[in-house]
């Protein structure tokens, strides 16, 4: 990670902090979409934030922050791929796949805020028990076997449940987005 230098204060500090905070899920999502769920995705996310903070003064408040932020994130993702010096097995995506994912994910990341609103409506419909299973997996990072043990269920049943819940949410998001378009 580059050393953190003192940032030059942006012309509109409040707007910058607001935009940076608001863009976090999309930046993080973009890094994970490019590099998979991995430590290096977190690394790219962190590096992007450092660079954005350092370049705060260069941001023009009349331009779209997320587009600028994702451009920076893309450079950081590519830089992480270039910096790979450890064994290849540590990484989820091979270099060429990660680069292709970094390209394909840019546009998708820009629409994440719309999806988040749809997702919020979809998760409201979840049964409490299903919400807990998803929270254990997504928020607390429990492995499937741990969730199965806690719920006294078979591992296979938890795998099926997680996949079914996740697919249901994906379909719900698409339905919500279509409804909004109509």
């Amino acid at each position, binding site marked *: 990670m580059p050393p953190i230098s003192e940032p030059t204060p942006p012309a509109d500090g409040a707007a910058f902090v607001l935009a940076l905070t608001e863009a976090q899920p999309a930046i993080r999502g973009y890094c994970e979409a490019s590099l998979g769920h991995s430590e290096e995705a977190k690394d790219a996310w962190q590096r992007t934030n450092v660079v954005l903070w350092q370049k705060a003064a260069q941001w023009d408040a009349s331009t779209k922050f997320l587009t600028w932020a994702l451009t920076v994130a893309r450079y950081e993702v590519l830089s992480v791929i270039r910096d790979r010096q450890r064994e290849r097995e540590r990484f989820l995506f*091979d270099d060429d796949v990660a680069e292709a994912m970094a390209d394909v994910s840019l546009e998708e990341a820009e629409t994440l805020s719309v999806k988040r609103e749809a997702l919020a409506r979809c998760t409201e419909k979840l049964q409490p028990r299903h919400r807990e299973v998803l929270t254990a997996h997504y928020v607390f*990072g429990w492995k499937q076997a741990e969730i199965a043990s806690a719920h006294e269920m078979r591992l296979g049943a938890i*795998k099926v449940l997680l996949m079914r819940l*996740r697919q249901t949410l994906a379909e719900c998001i698409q339905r919500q987005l279509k409804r909004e378009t109509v």
Partner: protein
Amino acid sequence: MKESPGTVWLERLRELLLESRTAPLSSVDRAELNALLRSHPEARAEASRWLLEDAALTEELRTAHVESLMKEESLLPSGPPVASKRLHPRRFQWRSVAAGLVVGLFCASVAWAIASPRGAAISWVRVLTENSFGTTSRPVPAGFPAQTDLWSGDRSEWVLEPRNKAGDGGAIIRFLQREGDAKDPKSRADYCDVFRIVDLRACRTASGAAGESTLFLSADFWDGRADRSQPVRFSCHLYLFEGGAEELHWAWPMALSSALASSFDYVMTSGAEPQHQWQRVTTRCALNPKADFAVLHLSAGRPSKPGQPVADLGAVFASNVKFSLKTQPPAVARIVHP
């Protein structure tokens, strides 16, 4: 029914992505995933969509979990806690509580502990400030606060409102006018903002070194305008600073660039909500060990572009503001069903 080849790779792709969330894939699975993504553009598009939605889902579930914790906690009295329905009696037990822990001038509050049988997992929650708008109607002081524990900001007022969400008979804030910052002539008057500085030093000391401490700011907002054709954005912002409260007063908003941490969340009214519906917004931020002060910031308004009609304020409100600190060990309490 025979599955199409498309469905087969799609399901396998999703399965591999789901498994990769919490553990490294085996070398065989990893090679299979890379081969899938390398050979199918559709697979890359699907994986990208899936992984981005994963990030959004994680954020959504985390926020919902935090809100549910806060909701449960606010219902508990300062005495011994009651067992949560969500905790398995064989695995967890509620221990006695350190109640009424008073931290600093503003930390009149409640704290309690959740303990595992091994006594390893203990969570503390402190309400740092809550519904502190008083019980009389009066204008909110102008400008950024010069001292802690006072709300002030753009033109707004405290009003007694029978539909107060907190139900405590106290006043709620009515946002009146969007204003720019007096110290910055270039600043745009998009939002009506109110602020409060909270001293974190006592809490920081009391929370101790062990565990993760997270600050939560939440508020209920109500768009009570007769004409709601123009949406209004209500937001909660939380900023953490090192240094003195007076410096913040003089340096605001330039001080924002030196914030140690910040967080933000919002809700936008669309005009489709029921007329009297309050909407809760919660934001959270990890307590930076260097943080001396927090700035709570509530705002209502709408960014205006040239030629666009300006959203009318005057019947938009905030109520039920709560600022709390939760400290918990890195190992989280596990939620299981009986």
